[in-house]
């Protein structure tokens, strides 16, 4: 209840109490005494009246008596009537003007022995009290006086009414005063409570108006001083709080955002977790709550291989106050492994007693993996360096070897063309030629394996490539594995480098072999495929390239792959093979090649159910004819044009010279670039074709061509080489527009290439 209301209530109750008490007192006692007084007055009036008229009563002067009582009656307002009964019981005199009210006569009975009595009468004039008094003691005569109560008591009632009204007025005035005073008293309180409200709402700047009486003024001043000091201290507090929050937030973000788990653990048997930062969930999969609830979770999740070691380490460090530093593995909720570097120290209180352990667990999985990767990479690097070395070696050997083989095979062929009479010699030469061809093919394989072969896309039949490598493949896979080819006889042609195709096939076959250490079935399959849009949609490929494709599939019945391996097979350097066996480049190279050729490659595999790789290459629509032409080139086409041969290898130069001269060409020869320039200066006339080696001492083929080309604009060039060489071949792929003759070559191949170049 409001203070003011309460005050009002209490005061009004008190006032009402007092006023009512006063009223009761007035009504009960004052009125009574007034009535008594009045009664007394009436009695004494009656006695006076008696004294005045008694003589007349007994002298029997009725007229005088009547006149006397009438005059008394008119003098006293509240006397309604007077009548006198004589001793003989008869009416002696009365004040009524006409007749006498008969009912009145005997209404008030005055018993013998009594001097006076009164009776209340109800008349139409209101209440009338009839006072009867004996004319004298022991006398039967009676004097009756009728006193009108209404008139008589009007005075009393008026004064009582006045008292009540005065009381009410006093009460009202009192209440009003209480209201005003309580308002005056409660106003500062109200102000104060307003101020309090302001404080409650945080408005510490609000000040109360300082006015009022001494005590109230003091109160208000005190209040204002209090709010002032509150403001000061709250501001300070607020600032401190803000600083605290800021620093707390800083540290919290530090603790919770760095990719490191921070923790505090009790120094009990379990190392119960007291705090662990939320990163635990993203890193280990367990929530903070789980970690706090189960104090052996850390213990349990430790990698079995590291467990004993780590436990031993903690046991050795914590109690001895040695900082704990360890790297170990833990199992995620999912079962995967996470590497941690855990560094912890024992925190002590001021007394130097150890309280808890505080530390952080850094997720070093990636660096561990990177480390592993690095090791792998190093191995791969070594492997590729080895390969490089092998390649370089093979390249170097192949160069000379090819030159030699070109000479051997060329000469054998030339010999066969010329020496045809002696059958036995002929047969011998024939054998030389065959052996040379075998050696050539070997060299090719060697180069392909060391990825040093020259890429020269051409329209080709995959079946032919497969057939050509089949023998070698069979050798590679060994006898435990059954090898089978299912080839589409009407297979469409593709535009690709046969060397690369070989490379793809070889790699896939080797992979299949490695997947079947216990033996199995290896199938190479080709087919024509019409891929519609649905095909791409079903496989979720965005780039929809419906059309005709040639499919090459290599399947095995080996160990297969799980999903993760499957997802990574095309990643460079992804391998599951031990160091030295695989580099992880095979499939990534294949992928690159296939993409280069606008195709795609799929893998289908389940662990234990074998694997199928499918390669799709676009079908070639047009230029099949042109390619066919080359194939159908005449046995040894000849010509009369002038041909410059630049070759540092004497025997090869001689062989080429010999072969072309037989066909009717005019020949210029040079040992190297410089020599070629000299030869040309001495030569008058046109040079139609230049056949040059790429790598030569003093001046290479390419530079020689650049020097000579301006002199003989219509001169055409054929480069000869045994392996990739930067001068002509960029990144192992032949620059377009260049004519290239791969070593070793046969006289026929040379004749055809020369004719073809000249005719173009």
């Amino acid at each position, binding site marked *: *209840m409001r203070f003011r209301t*309460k005050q009002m*209530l*209490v005061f009004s*109750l008190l006032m*009402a*109490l007092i006023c*009512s*008490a006063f*009223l*009761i007192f007035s*009504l*009960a006692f004052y009125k009574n005494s007034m009535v008594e007084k009045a009664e007394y007055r009436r009695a004494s009036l009656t006695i006076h009246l008696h*004294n005045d008229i*008694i*003589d007349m*009563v*007994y*002298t029997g002067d009725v007229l005088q008596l009547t006149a006397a009582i009438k005059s008394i009656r008119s003098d006293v307002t509240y006397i309604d*009537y007077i009548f006198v*009964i004589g*001793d003989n*019981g*008869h*009416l002696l005199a*009365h004040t*009524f003007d*006409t*007749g*006498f*009210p*008969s*009912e*009145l*006569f*005997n*209404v008030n*009975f*005055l*018993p*013998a*022995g009594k001097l006076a009595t009164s*009776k*209340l*009468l*109800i*008349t*139409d*004039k209101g*209440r*009338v009290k009839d006072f009867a008094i004996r*004319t*004298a*003691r*022991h*006398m*039967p005569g*009676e004097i009756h006086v009728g006193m009108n109560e209404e008139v008589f008591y009007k005075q009393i009632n008026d004064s009582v009414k006045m008292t009540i009204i005065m009381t009410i007025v006093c009460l009202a005035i009192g209440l009003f005063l209480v209201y005003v005073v309580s308002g005056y008293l409660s106003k500062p309180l109200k102000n104060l409570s307003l101020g309090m409200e302001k404080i409650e709402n945080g408005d510490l700047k609000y000040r109360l108006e300082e006015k009022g009486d001494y005590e109230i003024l003091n109160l208000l001043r005190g209040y204002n001083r209090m709010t002032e000091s509150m403001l000061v201290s709250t501001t300070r507090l607020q600032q401190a709080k803000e600083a605290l929050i800021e620093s707390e937030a800083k540290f919290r973000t530090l603790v919770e955002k760095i990719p490191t788990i921070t923790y505090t653990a009790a120094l009990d048997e379990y190392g119960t977790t007291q705090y662990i930062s939320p990163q635990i969930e993203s890193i280990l999969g367990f929530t903070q709550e789980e970690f706090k609830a189960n104090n052996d979770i850390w213990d349990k999740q430790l990698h079995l291989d590291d467990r004993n070691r780590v436990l031993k380490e903690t046991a050795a460090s914590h109690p001895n106050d040695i900082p704990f530093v360890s790297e170990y593995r833990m199992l995620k909720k999912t079962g995967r492994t996470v590497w941690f570097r855990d560094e912890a120290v024992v925190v002590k209180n001021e007394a130097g007693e150890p309280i808890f352990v505080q530390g952080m667990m850094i997720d070093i999985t990636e660096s561990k993996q990177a480390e592993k990767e690095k090791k792998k990479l190093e191995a791969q690097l070594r492997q590729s360096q080895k390969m490089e070395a092998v390649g370089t070696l093979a390249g170097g050997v192949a160069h000379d070897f090819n030159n030699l083989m070109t000479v051997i095979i060329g000469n054998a062929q030339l010999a066969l063309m010329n020496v045809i009479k002696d059958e036995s010699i002929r047969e011998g030469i024939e054998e030389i030629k065959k052996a040379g061809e075998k050696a050539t093919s070997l060299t090719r394989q060697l180069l392909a394996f060391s990825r040093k072969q020259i890429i020269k896309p051409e329209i080709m039949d995959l079946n032919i490539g497969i057939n050509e490598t089949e023998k070698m493949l069979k050798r590679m896979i060994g006898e435990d594995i059954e090898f089978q080819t299912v080839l589409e006889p009407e297979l469409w042609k593709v535009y690709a480098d046969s060397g690369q195709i070989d490379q793809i096939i070889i790699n896939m076959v080797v992979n299949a072999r490695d997947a079947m250490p216990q033996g199995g079935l290896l199938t190479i399959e080709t087919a024509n495929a019409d891929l519609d849009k649905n095909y791409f949609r079903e496989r979720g490929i965005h780039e929809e390239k419906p059309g005709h494709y040639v499919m090459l599939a290599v399947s095995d019945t080996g160990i297969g792959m799980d999903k993760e391996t499957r997802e990574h097979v095309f990643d460079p350097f992804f391998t599951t093979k031990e160091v030295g066996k695989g580099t992880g480049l095979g499939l990534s190279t294949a992928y690159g090649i296939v993409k280069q050729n606008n195709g795609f490659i799929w893998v289908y595999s389940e662990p234990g159910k074998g694997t199928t790789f499918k390669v799709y290459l676009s079908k070639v629509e047009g230029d099949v004819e042109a390619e066919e032409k080359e194939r159908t080139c005449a046995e040894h086409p000849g010509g009369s044009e002038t041909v410059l041969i630049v070759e540092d290898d004497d025997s090869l130069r001689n062989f080429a010279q010999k072969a072309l001269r037989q066909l009717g060409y005019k020949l210029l020869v040079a040992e190297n670039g410089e020599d070629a320039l000299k030869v040309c200066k001495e030569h008058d006339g046109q040079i139609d074709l230049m056949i040059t080696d790429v790598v030569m001492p003093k001046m290479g083929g390419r530079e020689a061509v650049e020097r000579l080309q301006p002199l003989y604009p219509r001169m055409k060039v054929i480069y000869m080489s045994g392996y990739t060489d930067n001068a002509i071949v960029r990144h192992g792929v032949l620059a377009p527009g260049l004519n290239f003759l791969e070593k070793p070559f046969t006289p026929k191949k040379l004749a055809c290439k020369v004719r073809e170049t000249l005719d173009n």
Partner: protein
Amino acid sequence: MKVFKNFAVVFAIFLFFVAVLSCEKGEESRKVDLDKRVSDVSQLVKTTDMGKSLTFCFDRRIDPSEEIKIYGVFLDYLEKETGLDFTLLFSKSYQEAIENIGAGKAQFAIMGGLSFLKAQHDYGVRMLVKGLGQNKKGDYQAAIIVEKNSPIKQLCQLKGCCFAFGSKHSTQGYLIPRYMLEKEGVLLGDLNKYFFTGSHWNCARAVIKGDALAGGIQDALAFRLEKDGVIRIIALSDYHPRSGIAVNKNVPEEIVDKVKTALLRFDPAGKHKDGLINWDKTEMLGGFTDFKPQNYDVLKKIAEKYRLLGDS
């Protein structure tokens, strides 16, 4: 709130008391129609229970209001002594008093010798006690008075005068004065004129006013008036027994005894003096004494001589 509750309780109790106290005691009231008037009021008779009390009849002599007081207190004394109720009845004349007591309208009456003798003769009324005058004298005199400045000094001078008597039945106011006049030779016929004023007081007044040259009144009043210098006494009679209190023959004996005892014990000069008012103005200012029937013999003879008894 608790304070408020307490206040409420106190206030409720308080209001209850207010309600109780403000209930006035209801007074019995009667409804009266003042408009029903009668003009012949003689038919209205007051119902009263005065009848069951004993009525004491007195002569009215001086001033009614005064006499009411005088006898009122006397009756108070009697009531107190006897435990009986008494009502006062004034008789306007001796004749009325005789009739009142004779007919039983009053049980007791104060009576002079003549009245008594007549009442005894007519109604068999008994005398109870004899009154005592000043100094407890059982006898009184009659006085012949004249106006203060009257030249008359002797009774004989009254022949041919106008003479006033009191009541016709008065001993002191008629019987004895007539006897005194006749003894001096003044017969009624010798008088120029004589008349009855009805009371000693009226008689004195007639003399003082000059209606009569002389008058005969009781000695007590005569002495007082002479003392006041209003009249002069020219003659006093012999002593005669004073007035007494007579009783109706039908009043039961025990009541008569009770009243007689009370009357004899009455000592207005002594122990009962304080309660009385102007008792000395009465005939019995000395109280009462036993009555002897022969006391009135002289008066009886005179009365018979004047034929005042019986056939008068």
